[in-house]
Structures are given as C-alpha cells and as structure tokens.
C-alpha cells in the first residue's frame, strides 16, 4: 500500500470544504419534489388533452391503464435504482428494461383486447397515428426529466444503459397517459402511436446517457 503525503489529505479536505454539497435529507427532498413536479406536469397535460373512454368499456380502460402503469412503475424502479453498491442494476437488466418495455406494453393491451375484441375495430388514419405519437412523446417528456434528475451524473459504470432504461420507463408513462385519452385500440395504431415512443425514448436516453448520467471530472468552483 502506498503512503500518501498529509498535504494531499489537507488539500482534498480544503477543496471539499469549499465545495457545497447537499446532504441526504436535502437530496431526498429534491428528489421527491422533482418526481412530484414531473407527475403533476404529466397529469396536467393529460387533463388538458382530455380524459375520455371514447366508447371503450370502462373495465377495459381500467385494465389497460393499470397494467401499463405497473409496467411503467417496474421500469422506473429498475432504471432509477442505485443498487447495493451505488452502481445501479447490472447492465443486462437495464438493457432488458429498455428493450422489453415496449413489447410488454403492446402484448398487455393485445391480451386485454381478447376480452373485448370490438375495441380493435376502429381504424386509425395516418393523421391519428402521427397525432397520437406526438402527444405520447410529449407526455413522456416530464417523466423523463423527473427520472433523469434522480440519476444525473451518478452512473460511473453504464450511463448509456441507464439512459436507455430511463427513456423506456418515461415512454411507458407516456403510454399510460395517452391511453386515458385515445379511444383507438387497433394493433397498428397502438404499436406506432402509443408504444413506439417508449422505444424511441430508450434510444434517446442511450444517446444522451453518457453526458447526462455519466460521472465526469468535477469543475473547480
């Protein structure tokens, strides 16, 4: 083991002392506020868009929303986890969340439509697909910002995978919210407009992951 000079210790302690850093309680408060703000913005946006059954059975909507909500919740829990060693979940688990969230969302909705096959009848137009896609992506923005804030600059091992998982989770929340508004449950429309944004957000999260979630050399203050 090397012996470090006491001057190095003193220098590091001085640098640390002059650099403010929030303690656990402050971080917890900020995190709760951030998540609450993200949820509030997303819900407000959904209410502005309008919540509507649109002719779908209430039980069907409840089942899809609850099921998708569980997927989004599980994805968020994995993506936002720090793990036992503060290094997050294993990369494979994060990649699984990033890639599997969209297919699971789609599979759940299709499973629900077997009970109410009539909901698949209404076909969407290209305009409907694009509009829904746009609004799903928009509704995913606030959850992405909220989840991202909990892992910002905190992943020294696999920031891209973390970004992908956070993106997928945010996209899943967007799917939950658009399901409260859009009456179309045709498979093509669901795949393109409600579920695809989750995959795209996963890709976006992977792209920006290194910059947003990676550990970088601290700047001198």
């Amino acid at each position, binding site marked *: 083991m090397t012996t470090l000079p006491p001057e190095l210790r003193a220098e590091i302690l001085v640098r640390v002392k002059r650099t403010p850093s929030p303690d656990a309680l402050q971080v917890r408060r900020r995190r709760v506020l951030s998540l609450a703000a993200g949820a509030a913005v997303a819900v407000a946006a959904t209410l502005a868009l309008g919540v509507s059954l649109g002719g779908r059975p209430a039980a069907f909507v409840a089942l899809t929303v609850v099921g998708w909500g569980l997927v989004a919740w599980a994805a968020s829990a994995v993506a936002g986890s*720090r793990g036992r060693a503060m290094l997050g979940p294993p*990369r494979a688990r994060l990649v699984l969340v990033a890639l599997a969230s969209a297919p699971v969302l789609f599979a759940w909705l299709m499973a629900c439509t077997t009970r109410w096959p009539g909901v698949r009848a209404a076909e969407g137009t290209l305009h409907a697909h694009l509009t829904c896609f746009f609004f799903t992506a928009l509704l995913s923005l606030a959850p992405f910002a909220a989840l991202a804030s909990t892992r910002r600059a905190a992943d020294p091992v696999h920031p891209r995978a973390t970004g992908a998982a956070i993106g997928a989770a945010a996209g899943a929340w967007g799917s939950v919210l658009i399901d409260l508004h859009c009456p179309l449950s045709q498979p093509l429309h669901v795949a393109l407009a409600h579920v695809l944004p989750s995959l795209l957000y996963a890709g976006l999260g992977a792209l920006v992951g290194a910059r947003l979630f990676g550990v970088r050399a601290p700047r001198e203050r």
Partner: protein
Amino acid sequence: MERYARGEEAAFGEVYDAIAPRLHAFLLRQTRDDARAKDVLQQTFLKIHLARGSFQPGAAVLPWAYAIARRLFLDSLRRGRREVAAEPDERAPGPDVPPDVAVYAAELGERVRGVLEGLPENQRVAFQLVKEEELSIAEAAAVVGATEAAVKLRAHRAYQALRAALGDLAPAPAVAKEGA
C-alpha cells in the same frame, strides 16, 4: 460514509483515511504516473463529496469509489492527456532484503507489469481488482459493470497469461532464516 451523507462533516476525513491509500495504489497501477494518480484521486474524492446526499445507507463504499476512480481515469485518458512515460518503480528495497532477492523481485515485478500491460484492458482490470485490490468477484463485477462470470473468466485469463509468460522463471533465491 453514512454519517457524512447525513451531514456530519468530520466523517469525510475518516472516509478518506479508509479508502485513499487503496484507491491511490489502484490508480498508480493504471498510470504509473504519481502526479496523474493523485490528480484523479482528488477528483474522485470530490465526486464522492458531491454525491454524498445520494449515498444509500448500507451500500458498499469501496466498489463505488473504485468505479468512480476508474471512470475518471479513463475519461482523463480519452480527453487526450498524454500518458507520461512511466519510470519503473524505483522504491528501494528494505534494508533486510538480500541483494539477490531484491534484484529477483524487481525483475519479476517488471515482467509481471509488462505482461499485464500487454493484456486487453478488461482482463487487466479484472485481474487487478480481484487479485491486487482484493475485491470480491461481485464487487469487481459491480465496478466494471460486467457479470460475475465474465469477471471471473477475465481474471482467470489474465492469470493464465501470467503463468504462461512467467513459466520460465527460475525459483526465487532462498532467503536465509533468522538465527540460522
């Protein structure tokens, strides 16, 4: 670390004393440039300080600190700071070490270093973390973001490479026992 995370400022010194020598030794093995190692060490502790509020009670500090140190070191390389041509370890052997043993140890150390530097980075780091830093397989896997099976395999391959490269070494000179 938990106390420091809760706001007990004096606890940071204890964290430093507990892990700094190990981190420094690890960084020195990566770069062999003492100034660079100390620079990255400072950055590592600053990052630990900045992230203290996020520290999970009960979490292991060492793998986290190693992972931060390794990431900052890799980033410093990527930013194009040139590796200073490292001087061989010039530490003088202890006064009780016979000269032939000291020479043998120095030559062995140099050959081991040469073999390790020729290995793929993932094998070298796995070997260093498990064998030299004495982290568990699970901790080393967490540091590098790989599975335990992958880390075990990499460390084993590095060990095999060392065995193959050092197989021609003559046995170490016998050291006279005290009182003999």
